[in-house]
């Protein structure tokens, strides 16, 4: 498939660089705050584009191992959630704990990497 350049993540980096380095210093109060929030939001999108595909592949492998069958990652995750609720998987199960810890760490690496080191 033909594709064009630059990559979406590069475009986002360029947009964030403008907002942070050129626009923000000229702002204060409400618009400075909103621009800061917008920069954070664009960085979330960039990190999701960079990492989510690899994360989802690993998540699917972990889920298939816990549940004993393969499938679409969203469906497997939902099935695991249902099995936690109905009690057919114990919340003390070490494989479950490790899976949840890794899934949360992955999501935080996208949404707010600083939280992992707090």
């Amino acid at each position: 498939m033909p594709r064009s350049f630059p990559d979406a993540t590069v475009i986002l980096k360029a947009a964030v660089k403008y907002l942070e380095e050129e626009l923000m210093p000229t702002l204060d109060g409400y618009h400075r705050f909103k621009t800061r929030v917008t920069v954070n939001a664009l960085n979330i999108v960039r990190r999701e584009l960079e990492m989510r595909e690899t994360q989802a592949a690993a998540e699917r492998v972990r889920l298939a191992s816990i549940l004993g069958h393969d499938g679409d990652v969203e469906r497997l995750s939902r099935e695991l959630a249902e099995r936690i609720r109905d009690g057919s998987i114990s919340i003390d199960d070490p494989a479950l704990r490790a899976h949840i810890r890794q899934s949360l760490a992955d999501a935080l690496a996208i949404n707010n990497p600083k939280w992992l080191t707090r």
Partner: protein
Amino acid sequence: MPSDDFAARLRTAVARHIGAPGTIFNLNRLTGGANKTTWSFDAEVAGARHPFILQLASAGIADVPQELLDLSPHLTAEQDARYMIAAVNHGVPAPRVRAIFDDADGLGPGYVTERVEGETLAPRILREERFTRARSLMAAQCGEILAKIHRIPLAEVPFLKHQDAAAQVAAQRKVLDYFDFRLPAIEMGLKWAAENLPKNPRLTAVHGDFRHGNFIVGEEGIRLVLDWEIGQSGDPMQDLGWLCVKTWRFGGPRPVGGFGAREDLFAAYEKASGHAVDPAHVRFWEAFGSVKWALGCLRMGIRGSEESGVERCAIGRRIEEPLWDFLNLIEGRD
């Protein structure tokens, strides 16, 4: 800017409930939340100008479906005001209510309280030099204030709804069902809560949102406790646990609101209330509080859209923070 009509009705209400002539100055909208809007104003009453706060129930609450409203305690504006009046009567530093609006005021549900100056922004209170002494006092002050809140006789606040921990777990599951949302980490949190329910908790008045960010602070510490609208009756340890949830530490290093030690909070509470504090019991509410805040992020995230703005969208993406804290808490890694 407020309309002339609105200011005129406010003046009439102030004159009627507080005193004539009620002339309004400096009417400024401070915040507009999903549930209420807050205004600051001064009014001339009996020859002097007095500082006030106006709270009005906002139309925004209409976008929350009734099924969800019924799942968690939420006071009407009048009940909110009556809870603060009862609190003040028992020595709690709550806003002093001066007017509760009725139909004749034409302003919708709302009330006026006396305005107290001070800082509410948690990051400033945690970092600024001038609050050094306040920070050292606030954990014990929280313990003393909570002991007073928990002594308010329930007969004086009969409108508080009772929701014990088990009922709260059930309510959170219904919220997830309503949105048809499933996340293993949330299910684990709710299952953990269901398996670790506190045994024989006391039943008292509970503030429900007693945390850093809801205090007006001066150099001498806490001047006022705000945001009484999710007041309820229940396990008093709920308030102590919620105060320690990591989200409400705003990056501060210490467990109580980022500013204090659990030991100081518990010792002051025990001394003022005469009731022993079991740290594991408080930890239950801190852990479950983290899970409840994840549900709060979910609700805001689901309502996040182009129209609601980038901030609400960003809060939706904070859902894993309290779940991560929850996991660390139950595994002893906090």
